[in-house]
């Protein structure tokens, strides 16, 4: 319960001829995190068929990216059986639709580029639409032609400079969509002189050498429009055909792509192995509970021709945490701080318990609990299962239950105390300040003592005996110190505080002698304990704000309908704000008490997450 899943490092040695069978078993079971072996052997290579598989995979993935997945209302897919490799390759090569999709896409791309060219030709031709120029007949040895879009000032400057430099030329002007278009015929031998004039002027040159401008502009426009429509129709037909292929073959193509992906995955994983002439070696971490089954399966797959052995080389195992689905988001929350190392206590169960109690106490209102449950459930449904928001919403959903429980125990229903529940009211936030303050301090002392006990176990496991004993003496300091101070101030347990005081001093001296760090921590034992009074502080603040809202804004029909609506809206809005404030602060503070005050007594963290070799399937099964 307080440990991560026990792991064992193993080594599998088998004949090279059985490599594929073993990889398949490892992938199917998904229980081994493969590590490169430290043995002084040659590195293994990827499997031979990887080139063929990867070429097919690229084609299938490419084809799939151009298809739309058919709509599936139930999100249920009938998974197909993974084919044997030879059969899969044969089947993939025989799937003509993939070739068809890729060639259709290529054709569509060519057509789209051509349409773009036609549109540019149309735009150019449209500029000269009003000029009676036949571009098809411009070919002449002595004459050259250029066209520009210019403003009136540049045009008159151009004309002036042409006449000044005595360039033999003819200019035709036309206006098109507020643009002045100039068509210039000039003596080809004066090309350089014209360049010198044109360059400093801010005029946009129009490319009239473009292939489409080969007749009168109006004829060019008609011809290009017709061509464009034909090609757009063709593109539509291609899209229609792609949609039809998608409808009929998407699942089949996606299934084959997934099988190829799985084969590719198997082919390349062997680059993490070591090899000799006839054998290969795989090493990795496996949960101890799965070792027997793994050995049985690889023995069956290789007809007993393999060997599996345990390795104990002192390497730290990766961390795997296992919890029922309901509580799994808390693993995420603990991992958010730092994942526990596999050789230390996993405090997540204790974290869950204390987080829920602290959070429930801090919010402590049945109405807020119900609202939390509703909002959290909506968020859980809205956000994808693997994301941060979903995990936080699931924590919130679960935490709404202690909010309701503590709400009933403290008789708070949207800040209102109900007379009917007075009898079961165990927590009186307003009238029992000393009691609740003491209760939260005692909760803190309990959690810190548990933290120190966990610290003792961790140090003992690591054979750091001095530190382990100093954790024990710190526990004694905490308990005896509490009795001494509590007895002195409030007279509980006994008014004679001498024995407790002596024990505290002796335990403190032993701690100082054993560990300087632990001695420095004494001040933290006091400040961390007092820090737990925030549970009382936030709980009281939330309840007082709620009761103030009730006193000031409870709607009443006696003043008329408009004040009633106004007060009702304010009442809801302010309660909503108080609820959000309590909920946010509650999560942050409950997490903080665990991470800082509790974890600092024992937690090292920094564990490496267990990442087994496996393949996630959606369309196929094995």
């Amino acid at each position: 319960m307080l440990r991560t899943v026990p792991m064992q490092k193993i080594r599998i040695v088998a004949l090279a001829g059985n490599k594929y069978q073993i990889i398949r078993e490892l992938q199917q079971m998904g229980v081994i995190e493969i590590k490169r072996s430290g043995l002084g052997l040659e590195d293994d290579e990827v499997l031979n068929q990887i080139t063929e598989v990867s070429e097919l995979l690229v084609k299938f993935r490419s084809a799939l990216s151009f298809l739309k997945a058919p709509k599936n209302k139930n999100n249920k897919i009938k998974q197909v059986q993974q084919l044997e490799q030879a059969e899969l390759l044969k089947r993939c090569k025989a799937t003509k639709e993939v070739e068809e999709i890729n060639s259709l896409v290529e054709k569509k791309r060519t057509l789209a580029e051509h349409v773009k060219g036609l549109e540019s030709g149309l735009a150019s031709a449209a500029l000269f639409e009003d000029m009676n120029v036949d571009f098809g007949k411009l070919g002449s040895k002595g004459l050259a032609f250029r066209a520009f879009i210019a403003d009136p000032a540049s045009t008159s400057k151009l004309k002036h400079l042409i006449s000044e430099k005595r360039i033999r030329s003819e200019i035709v002007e036309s206006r098109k969509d507020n643009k002045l278009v100039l068509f210039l015929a000039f003596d080809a031998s004066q090309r350089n002189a014209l360049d010198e004039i044109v360059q400093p002027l801010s005029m946009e040159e129009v490319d009239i050498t473009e292939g489409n401008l080969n007749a009168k502009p109006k004829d060019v426009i008609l011809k290009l429009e017709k061509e464009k429509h034909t090609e757009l129709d063709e593109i539509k037909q291609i899209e229609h055909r792609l949609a039809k292929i998608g409808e009929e073959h998407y699942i089949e193509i996606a299934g084959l792509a997934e099988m190829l992906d799985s084969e590719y995955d198997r082919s390349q994983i062997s680059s993490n192995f070591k090899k000799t002439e006839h054998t290969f070696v795989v090493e990795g971490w496996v949960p101890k509970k799965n070792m027997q089954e793994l050995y049985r399966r690889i023995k069956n797959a290789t007809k007993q021709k393999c060997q599996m052995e345990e390795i104990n080389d002192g390497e730290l195992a990766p961390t795997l945490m296992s919890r029922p689905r309901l509580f799994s988001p808390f693993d995420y929350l603990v991992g958010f701080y730092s994942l526990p190392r596999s050789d230390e206590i996993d405090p997540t169960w204790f974290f869950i318990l204390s987080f829920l109690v602290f959070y429930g106490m801090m919010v402590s209102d049945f109405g807020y609990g119900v609202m939390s449950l509703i909002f959290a459930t909506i968020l859980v449904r809205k956000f994808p299962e693997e994301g941060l928001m979903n995990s936080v919403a699931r924590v919130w959903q679960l935490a709404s239950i202690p909010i309701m429980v503590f709400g009933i125990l403290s008789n708070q229903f949207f800040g209102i105390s109900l007379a009917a529940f007075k009898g079961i009211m165990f927590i009186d936030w307003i009238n029992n300040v000393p009691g609740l303050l003491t209760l939260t301090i005692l909760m803190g002392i309990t959690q810190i003592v548990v933290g120190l006990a966990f610290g003792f176990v961790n140090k003992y496991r690591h054979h750091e005996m001095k530190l382990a004993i100093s954790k024990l003496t710190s526990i004694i300091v905490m308990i005896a110190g509490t009795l001494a101070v509590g007895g002195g101030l409030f007279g509980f347990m006994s008014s004679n505080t001498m024995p407790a005081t002596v024990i505290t001093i002796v335990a403190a001296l032993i701690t100082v002698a054993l560990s300087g760090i632990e001695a420095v921590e004494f001040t933290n034992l006091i400040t961390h304990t007092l820090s737990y009074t925030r549970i009382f502080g936030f709980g009281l603040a939330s309840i007082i704000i709620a009761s103030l809202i009730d006193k000031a804004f409870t709607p009443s029909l006696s003043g008329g309908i408009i004040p009633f609506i106004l007060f009702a809206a304010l009442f809801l809005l302010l309660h909503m704000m108080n609820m959000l404030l309590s909920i946010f602060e509650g999560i942050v503070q409950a997490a903080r008490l665990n991470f800082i005050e509790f974890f600092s007594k024992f937690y090292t963290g920094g564990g490496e997450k267990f990442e087994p070799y496996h393949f996630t399937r959606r369309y196929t099964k094995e």
Partner: protein
Amino acid sequence: MTIELAAAVAAIGAGLAITGGAIGTGMVQASVGSAGIGLLAEKPDQIGIAMLFLVIPETLVIFGFVIAVLILLGAGII
């Protein structure tokens, strides 16, 4: 309504305790918060650590609160 001098002084003392804690927390959180936002701009995955450091100084106001409650309890106001 008549208030005893001792009670009035105790109430002022409790107010000062909370005020001091709150100002201290605010000053520290201003620095930690802006540094945290800087951290998040570079490394958004560090939000947990940023949030944690942000709430650490709240202990100051909690201490102020505890002292205020103890003063009020001692003076018999609550």
